[in-house]
């Protein structure tokens, strides 16, 4: 009985760590929102570094638990894949923020608001999917996955629109090069969310 309780405790710990990792993605995207909505303010990367550092700790703890735990709640490779894709979300957000701050003088007036809003939605959906998986509310996971895919598809359309504007004659070439890189990075944030959603959906299918 005690052994079984210990196993259940460990199972909960796995999900708590994954949820904590998804939460760090949310912290990172909110920090980015503060920078992009107040570009004139004194921006700092500290919040991103902190979010990624915490996420790294969570991912390392999870990796170590995977090796030292005999029975895991989900298949080992699924847990590994989840930890890895979740870690990439705040990492990519931080990369965008670093490059945005470096490039600010060259890209004055550029509007990332639509892509940012979709990124925020995507990261939030991932967090909700992790919470639903933890709570075994599997029906919710499917709905959230469908919404995540719709967000990703909308982001693809917006990227195309932004690129169309960028590829017009007359846009200074350096500005075009920098903006293309930044648009692609924000797109990658949403892609990482989609990847995480796919892993969760795959887990759900396996355990249905």
């Amino acid at each position: 009985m005690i052994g079984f309780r210990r196993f259940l405790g460990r199972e909960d710990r796995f999900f708590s760590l994954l949820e904590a990792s998804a939460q760090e993605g949310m912290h990172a995207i909110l920090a980015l929102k503060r920078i992009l909505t107040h570009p004139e303010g004194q921006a700092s990367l500290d919040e991103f570094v902190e979010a990624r550092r915490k996420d790294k700790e969570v991912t390392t703890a999870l990796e170590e638990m995977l090796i030292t735990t005999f029975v895991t709640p989900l298949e080992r490779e699924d847990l590994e894949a989840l930890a890895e894709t979740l870690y990439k979300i705040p990492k990519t957000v931080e990369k965008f923020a670093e490059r945005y701050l470096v490039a600010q003088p060259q890209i004055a007036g550029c509007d990332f608001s639509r892509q940012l809003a979709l990124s925020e939605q995507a990261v939030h959906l991932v967090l909700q999917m992790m919470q639903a998986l933890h709570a075994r509310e599997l029906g919710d996971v499917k709905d959230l996955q469908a919404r995540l895919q719709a967000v990703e598809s909308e982001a693809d359309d917006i990227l195309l629109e932004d690129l169309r504007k960028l590829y017009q004659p007359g846009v200074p070439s350096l500005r075009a090069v920098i903006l293309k890189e930044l648009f692609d990075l924000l797109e990658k944030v949403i892609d990482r969310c989609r990847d995480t959603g796919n892993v969760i959906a795959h887990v759900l299918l396996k355990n249905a």
Partner: protein
Amino acid sequence: MDAMISLQRLLGKDDRFFDLLNAAAEEARQSVLILSRSLGTPSNRPTLEDLARARRSEKRITQQISEALVETVVTHLEREDIEMLSETLYKIPKIVEKFAERFSISEGMVKGADFSKHIELLGAATTQVVAMVNELSDLGAGRLDKVKAMNARLQEIESEADELILELLRELWSGRHDTTKVIVMKDLYELLEKGIDRCRDAGKAVTHITLKNS
């Protein structure tokens, strides 16, 4: 007696794996040394063939590892861990060769550019990888802390490289350079950074194996 010999051949192949993995890590380090030497002495440019040779040699080692994995029934290390490490190690000289190829076609454009800091970091990262892979032949109690410390150093190197690329971007995106030059330089710096990222992956794989066997 024959059956006994076959059984011995099937088992106990770990030394061969360790030797091959060590050779693969060393080959990766050599490719960075070749690059560093050639960029340090502009008169001695034709290094593409040397780098291609290093990459081919690494490829041969990777194939030998794959073949040994098929022939061997039981290994001390898990099959997929050996494969993952071997594939990651192969990518290092491949990226170094790609950098040299791109550098050679854009030499006029990147004249005077300084890649030394990045190459120095890549050299430090490959040296660290060689040392870490070497630790695999003596797994067991007490090794984990040492390998974790080595991995932490590798991650520091990777983080230094990230900061360096950000500094370079600040300069490249300042508006003081021709845009084509910006594209070319960024491509080259990012290739070197990718080499360091692959070293980080190799370090992660060694730590993972050590943790499993500690």
